[in-house]
């Protein structure tokens, strides 16, 4: 391979020819036919090995200089090494790799990017690690160290078996530097959790995995979100390395100094480095030492000797901040030496303090050593004497070769021959921003390249100037790609002074790109709708086989949310453990589900809740439900909303991103769902969930966008709608696919990669089974239907969770190869088939997937670097259909960055460069501009608007989803029609008028048409403002109509009206937004067209009151002011209390009170508003009781005498007042009760008992009562008679029995009336007379 490169470097073969050779398919046609350069033909090398070799070559060459990118975890393009392995890989594979090591299978292990056969052509000194490059970088960091050679045995592995691929020679010397680099990443992670597992693992590298149960594994697998895994794994790995090196005895224990604010910045951020480097660099650091020659980085605090070998000095790829910056200080020291001394002293003092503070802290099992300390310091502190190395074009050496390399490299990128173009871009930006040491100005290339025979061996990147030159060259060629990045990145690029000085042309173009860019990206806050609403269609009883199932599910739903709330409240607390706290509850819940076979219901709920909570861009965001930020945001309103959002991003974003190629993760709320699945460990649930996810994925994947005629007018508007819709669908799909992938591959996930035998048998076995979701078919269909922009991103999410074996299965192999074909074929350029950004998204996600897959130890590199990419799988439907999503411009930067947050690393890299270069570069430091207090003042209207918007969202929450769809659909169509309507009416009219005006004016002045046109148009613009009024009117008229027609007839008035209003508002908004930006242009255009043609020839109803019908009608004009039934019952109860006793002394009830009570009772019974059956029933019972007590004189009544005096004419009978009360009661029973009063209760043994115990006269009252019953038609004579008869069967006092008999006879028949006359009671006689008269 080196030979091929050599040819290019010697300019014997043009880079283009080489690329041509690379792309040529050897199997198809002969080299001659393909016009392959004969020199390349003569090499007869396998093409597929070239790109890996070349990438390795670049990494290795530049390794020494790459010191920048502090803000990103991965300093080097070897994201795998850093970002991934550190995060995921190390956790997951650390042990497995080690295990692999011990089993001796290391040598057989697959080696990515291995430069077969050509390794030797490299300078032995540089012995870069092929596998390191496999990650895209030579920097041997994180995982490489933690998982030594076993995984990536390299050709040169013999040099240091345990670091087979490590380029490191003089480890000890470089350690601090390298660590600085690693440490940047790892140490920056505040180790809140005690480091347990990883560390121990590191110590006994072979015996670790046994402790990990599968559940654990699964959890860790994607446990990036909490930095602890990184931390632990890293420490493990590092230690391993130390052991191997034999420096472990004195080596730095990975003691983490929690007191060090810089290692553990208060703000939890994985990009901790940024946090610390940025602010500190605002002070221009002064070099500490100037004494050292270039060759000797001075490690102030390193106890280990420093090697002299320049080659060794520059470990390939490690970006050793400390190391380098020291050098830089050396190169460009400007500050006074006294100051330096002071600083040096200060630093030493500080170091001592740190040391003291850290060692007794006992946070680590290992003793602290100076080495460690130095590492810590160099990693975390801005290096002493940090000065930018200025890059000068004039100092670039071997330009020609660099040109050649740049051209070749660019071509590889442009042709998608590299596995991940963004990774390469990242690499290039690293070069651009490198602050690496460079050769002293005086030092010549000759010196540097002494002893190098071939061009390949020469150091082309030994100084910053060369690196920058190369980078700028590549960037220039990748301009189009770059110009599609988001605005912030463009700004940084445009401001980059190196670009400005190396290529003013590119600088200019970037400026322009920046200025014209509208691609602002912000990570939106997740909306805060919480629960999945209950929908009767799917959730009510009829959807369950039994009552039991229904009720159990009712409970499950509540338990689920209870768990969710508990998680939300506690999961960030340090000692909280998901499995420990929730595990058993979840399993108990699963058991219930199993008992009733409710899994499918629960799976649906689960899936909906996932979408509900997690589809926010940052994986659901950090907070859900109660967001204090949200409150702040609410308070501050719109303007400041965006600012705060950005601020929040700064805090939040770094946490979720790990280098340019982070492993798949379940950030934010997704964590809950993943852990839930793991803790549940339920086969049934998983199966149902998978089914559910598949179903939903298929449904969403079938997305069709509203077909729209690309007519000029409203296209813009509809495009926006479609984009929005598409974004939502895409994000949901990705989310669901990730969970599906997680579930599908979960059973196969292993800590260790399977042994070869197991591997083979597993492959053989699994090749027999069908995939859960036929992604291959879907992918093929998507390619054919040109819908890859929707399908590929989620398939990538799905595949990113594959286990060790899956990539080797025939099925997934085909999928991968198909994806690769897509990747290769998708050369970024704007074309009809697909928009640029659509392609970028696909490239970015695929690149990420490939890069990530290479980290699976056994995935064959051929997967990517095969030269035999067949194109036949990519048969596309040439028929452009409405469903050809690929050709629609659906992706914007916002979506691109949302799907691929790792692209933000590019910006971070550039930003950190700016921050670091600070004053010297002049003017790039971002100051925090204080905001005017005014603008921060809360704007009530904004708050109100926000609340309104929330209300609107809330409105849809409990409605069936179709309601929202309908409203949105109507809004969209009506808005669109509105514009059309305006165009057809108002604009047309205006144009006609304009025509007339123009015709007149043209006659007057035929010289300046443009001016004329402007004049006329200006006049019309004012009238154009009518468009808004008309538009509004139109929407107000049409919206409700449409909504009404589309919603079910049964929709309640209020819902309908709200839906109508929302539809109207949305439609109006849409129309007006469009009109406000376009109306003038539209008028102008129309007028112009007409003009030129002319020249050629010569333009709700408010919710109808749901009149809540009263159960029973109140009397007309009832004000409902009657006392509540409960009050009356209570009062009667009090009376009863006193009546039945025990009483306090002279306790009594005033007659007036009773009278009043009965009056109120009547009122209460008349007003039916607050009455309910139980109240009425109770009232009936109580009043009968009351009557019985009255009749038997059980109630101590005050003021009875007073009453009798009031009616002197009735003085004879002192019972009159009570009779009045009884009459009132009878009247109430008769008139006011709606229900039938069980008056027969009067004849209950208990109540009659009261009478029996009473004195003689009360029997009169009893009789009065009975007659009253007849009189008021409450009972018949016969009825009373029979009750009285039956009463005689009880044992009563003899006189009472007699009386009963008498009474009974009284009622026996009307014929006995005469006998009644003997009764002493006059009143009774009278009333009896009335009765007889009636009958």
């Amino acid at each position: 391979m080196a030979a091929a490169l050599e040819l290019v470097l010697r300019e014997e073969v043009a880079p283009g020819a080489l690329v041509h050779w690379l792309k040529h398919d050897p199997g198809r046609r002969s080299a001659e036919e393909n016009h392959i350069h004969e020199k390349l033909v003569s090499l007869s090398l396998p093409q597929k090995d070239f790109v890996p070799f070349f990438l390795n070559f670049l990494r290795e060459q530049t390794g020494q200089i790459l010191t920048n990118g502090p803000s990103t975890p991965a300093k080097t393009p070897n994201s795998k090494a850093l970002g991934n392995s550190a995060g995921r890989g190390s956790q997951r594979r650390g042990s497995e790799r080690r295990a692999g090591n011990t089993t001796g299978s290391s040598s057989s292990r697959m080696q990515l990017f291995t430069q077969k056969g050509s390794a030797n052509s490299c300078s032995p000194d540089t012995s870069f690690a092929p596998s390191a490059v496999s990650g895209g970088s030579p920097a041997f960091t994180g995982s490489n160290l933690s998982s030594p050679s076993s995984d990536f045995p390299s050709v040169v592995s013999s040099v240091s078996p345990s670091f087979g691929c490590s380029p490191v020679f003089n480890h000890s010397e470089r350690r601090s530097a390298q660590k600085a680099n690693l440490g940047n990443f790892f140490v920056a992670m505040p180790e809140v959790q005690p480091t347990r597992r990883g560390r121990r693992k590191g110590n006994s590298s072979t015996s670790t995995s046994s402790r990990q149960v599968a559940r654990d594994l699964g959890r860790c697998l994607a446990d990036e979100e909490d930095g602890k895994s990184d931390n632990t794994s890293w420490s493990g790995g590092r230690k391993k390395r130390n052991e191997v090196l034999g420096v472990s005895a004195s080596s730095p224990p990975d003691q983490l100094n929690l007191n060090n604010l810089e290692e553990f910045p208060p703000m939890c951020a994985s990009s901790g480095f940024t946090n610390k480097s940025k602010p500190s660099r605002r002070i221009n650091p002064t070099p500490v030492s100037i004494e050292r020659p270039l060759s000797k980085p001075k490690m102030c605090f390193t106890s280990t000797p420093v090697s002299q070998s320049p080659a060794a000095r520059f470990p390939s790829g490690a970006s050793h901040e400390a190391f380098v910056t020291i050098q830089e200080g050396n190169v460009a020291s400007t500050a006074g030496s006294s100051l330096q001394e002071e600083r040096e002293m200060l630093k030493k003092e500080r170091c001592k303090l740190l040391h003291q503070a850290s060692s007794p802290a006992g946070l680590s099992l290992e003793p602290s050593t100076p080495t460690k300390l130095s590492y810590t310091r160099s990693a975390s502190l801005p290096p002493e004497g940090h000065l930018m190395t200025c890059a000068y074009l004039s100092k670039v050496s071997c330009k020609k070769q660099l040109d050649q390399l740049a051209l070749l490299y660019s071509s590889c990128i442009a042709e998608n021959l590299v596995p991940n173009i963004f990774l390469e871009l990242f690499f290039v930006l690293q070069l651009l921003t490198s602050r690496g040491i460079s050769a002293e100005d005086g030092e010549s290339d000759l010196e540097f390249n002494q002893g190098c025979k071939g061009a390949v061996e020469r150091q082309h990147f030994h100084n910053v100037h060369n690196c920058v030159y190369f980078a700028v060259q590549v960037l220039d060629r990748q301009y189009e790609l770059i110009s599609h990045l988001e605005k912030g990145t463009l700004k940084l690029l445009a401001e980059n002074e190196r670009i400005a000085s190396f290529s003013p042309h590119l600088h200019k173009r970037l400026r322009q790109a920046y200025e014209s860019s509208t691609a602002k990206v912000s990570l939106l806050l997740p909306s805060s709708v919480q629960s999945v609403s209950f929908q009767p269609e799917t959730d009510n009883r009829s959807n369950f086989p039994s009552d039991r199932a229904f009720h159990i599910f009712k409970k499950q739903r509540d338990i689920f949310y209870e768990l969710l709330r508990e998680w939300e409240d506690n999961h960030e607390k340090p000692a909280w453990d998901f499995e420990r706290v929730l595990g058993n509850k979840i399993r108990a819940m699963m058991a219930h589900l199993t008992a009733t076979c409710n899994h499918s219901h629960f799976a649906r709920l689960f899936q909906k809740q996932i979408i509900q909570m997690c589809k926010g861009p940052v994986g659901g965001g950090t907070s859900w439900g109660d967001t204090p930020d949200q409150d702040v945001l609410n308070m501050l309103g719109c303007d400041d909303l965006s600012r705060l959002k950005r601020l929040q991003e700064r805090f939040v974003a770094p946490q979720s991103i790990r280098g340019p190629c982070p492993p798949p993760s379940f950030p934010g709320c997704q964590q809950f769902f993943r852990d839930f699945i793991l803790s549940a460990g339920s086969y049934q649930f998983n199966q149902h969930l998978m089914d559910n996810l598949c179903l939903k994925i298929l449904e969403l994947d079938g997305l069709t966008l509203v077909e729209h005629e690309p007519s000029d007018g409203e296209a813009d508007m509809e495009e926006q709608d479609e984009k929005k819709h598409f974004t939502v669908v895409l994000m949901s799909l990705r989310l669901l696919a990730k969970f599906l992938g997680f579930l599908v591959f979960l059973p196969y996930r292993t800590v260790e990669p399977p042994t070869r035998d197991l591997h083979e048998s597993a492959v053989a076995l699994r090749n027999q089974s069908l995939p859960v979701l036929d992604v291959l078919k879907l992918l093929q269909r998507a390619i054919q239907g040109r819908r890859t922009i929707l399908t590929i991103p989620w398939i990538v999410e799905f595949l990113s969770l594959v286990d060790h074996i899956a990539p080797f299965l025939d099925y997934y192999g085909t999928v991968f190869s198909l994806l690769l074909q897509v990747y290769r074929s998708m050369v970024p350029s704007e074309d009809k088939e697909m928009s640029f950004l659509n392609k970028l998204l696909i490239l970015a996600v695929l690149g990420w997937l490939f890069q990530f897959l290479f980290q699976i130890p056994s995935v064959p590199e051929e997967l990517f670097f095969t030269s035999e990419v067949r194109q036949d799988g990519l048969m596309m439907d040439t028929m452009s259909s409405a469903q050809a999503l690929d050709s629609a411009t659906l992706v914007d930067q916002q979506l691109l960055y949302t799907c691929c947050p790792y692209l933000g690393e590019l910006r971070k890299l550039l930003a950190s460069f700016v921050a670091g270069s600070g004053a010297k570069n002049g003017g790039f430091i971002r100051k925090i501009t204080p905001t005017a207090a005014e603008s921060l003042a809360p704007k009530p209207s904004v708050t109100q608007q926000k609340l309104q918007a929330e209300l609107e969202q809330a409105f849809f929450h409990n409605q069936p989803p179709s309601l929202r769809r309908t409203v949105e659909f109507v809004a969209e169509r009506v808005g669109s029609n509105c514009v059309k309507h305006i165009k057809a009416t108002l604009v047309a009219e205006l144009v006609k008028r304009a025509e007339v005006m123009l015709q007149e004016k043209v006659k007057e002045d035929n010289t300046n048409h443009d001016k004329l046109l402007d004049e006329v148009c200006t006049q019309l613009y004012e009238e154009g403002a009518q468009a808004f009024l008309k538009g509004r009117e139109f929407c107000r008229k049409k919206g409700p109509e449409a909504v009404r027609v589309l919603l079910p007839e049964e929709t309640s008035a209020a819902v309908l009206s709200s839906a109508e209003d929302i539809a109207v508002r949305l439609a109006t908004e849409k129309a007006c937004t469009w009109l406000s930006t376009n109306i003038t242009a539209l008028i102008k255009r129309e007028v112009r067209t007409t003009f030129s043609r002319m020249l050629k020839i010569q333009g709700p109803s408010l919710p109808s009151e749901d009149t809540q019908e009263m159960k029973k009608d109140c009397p007309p004009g009832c004000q409902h002011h009657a006392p509540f039934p409960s009050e009356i019952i209570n009062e009667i109860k009090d009376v009863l209390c006193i009546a039945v006793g025990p009483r306090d002394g002279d306790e009594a009830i005033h007659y007036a009170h009773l009278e009043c009570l009965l009056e109120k009772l009547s009122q209460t019974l008349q007003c039916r508003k607050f009455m309910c059956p139980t109240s009425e029933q109770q009232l009936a019972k109580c009043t009968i009781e009351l009557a019985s007590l009255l009749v038997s004189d059980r109630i101590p009544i005050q003021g009875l005498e007073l009453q009798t005096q009031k009616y002197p004419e009735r003085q004879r009978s002192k019972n009159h007042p009570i009779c009045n009360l009884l009459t009132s009661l009878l009247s109430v029973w008769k008139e006011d009760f709606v229900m039938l009063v069980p008056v027969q209760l009067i004849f209950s043994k208990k109540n009659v008992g009261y009478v029996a115990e009473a004195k003689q006269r009360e029997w009169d009252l009893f009789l009065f009562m009975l007659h009253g019953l007849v009189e008021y038609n409450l009972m018949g004579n016969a009825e009373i008679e029979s009750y009285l008869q039956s009463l005689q069967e009880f044992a009563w006092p003899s006189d009472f029995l007699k009386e009963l008999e008498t009474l009974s006879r009284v009622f026996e028949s009307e014929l006995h009336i005469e006998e009644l006359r003997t009764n002493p009671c006059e009143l009774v006689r009278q009333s009896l007379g009335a009765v007889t008269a009636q009958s």
Partner: protein
Amino acid sequence: MKLSKAQYEEIARFLGHVQPTRQSLRRLKERFPSQSQSTLLSIFSQEYQKQIKRTHAKHHTAEAIETYYQRYRSRVMKNAAAPVLLELANEVDFAPSLMARIVLERFLQEQEQGIPSKTLINSMLRDPSQIPDGVLANQVYQCTVNDCCYGPLVDCIKHAIGHEHEVLLREMLLKKNLSFLAEDQLRAKGYDKTPDFILEVPVAVEGHIIHWIESKASFGDESSHQSYLQDQFWSYWNRFGPGLVIYWYGFIEELDCHRERGILLKDCFPTDIVTLRHSMAQH
């Protein structure tokens, strides 16, 4: 009326070991004249119920039941007209209605040589005239009438109060033109958990969006609120989103801590209601 935790605890302390009689209630009102009567009664009732829950078991041991029954028998023999059962309940610090139930159950057991059904006992407690023994009927009635925390009469009053407040709330909603689905409508649709009212169009109360309103004609103390949260409010939240609970007789201020998460407490119908404005289109 919102009470601070301290205020509430003062009342609860006063209630310590009182008997559930109107006399106790009167004293309570005298002691805390500034509190509304219904609030006090509600707190009284809840506190008493807590006390009863604590001692419930000890009154239901076989020995206790036997003792009570025999004591009742012997005293009634002496004087059937005296409030024997009520006094017995007061003596042993037990709710009169519950004491009546114990004795009645025991009585029926003796009469019918078997364990009487719950329905029968309940029905007899509701209408003591069904009790075959006249004296016992009177005694039982005396107990249920005098008990202001337990018993069919109290239950009915509570039920009535609850219903009345629901009606009140409904009225207020109608007055405010807020459209809602009531519990019965929801049940008819097959909802498994139903708050009193679901707003068809949500509103914002004091800046918080609410989808449903639950009316509670009681005082919201800690234990009742917790169990309501557990059994009802969170369930509503789980299905319908955030909502409002009105404790008409007040609540402990400190319990209103789930506002952010979506459970808002009020002691009256809210005044600060923002509706989804239909005029937005005109902005």
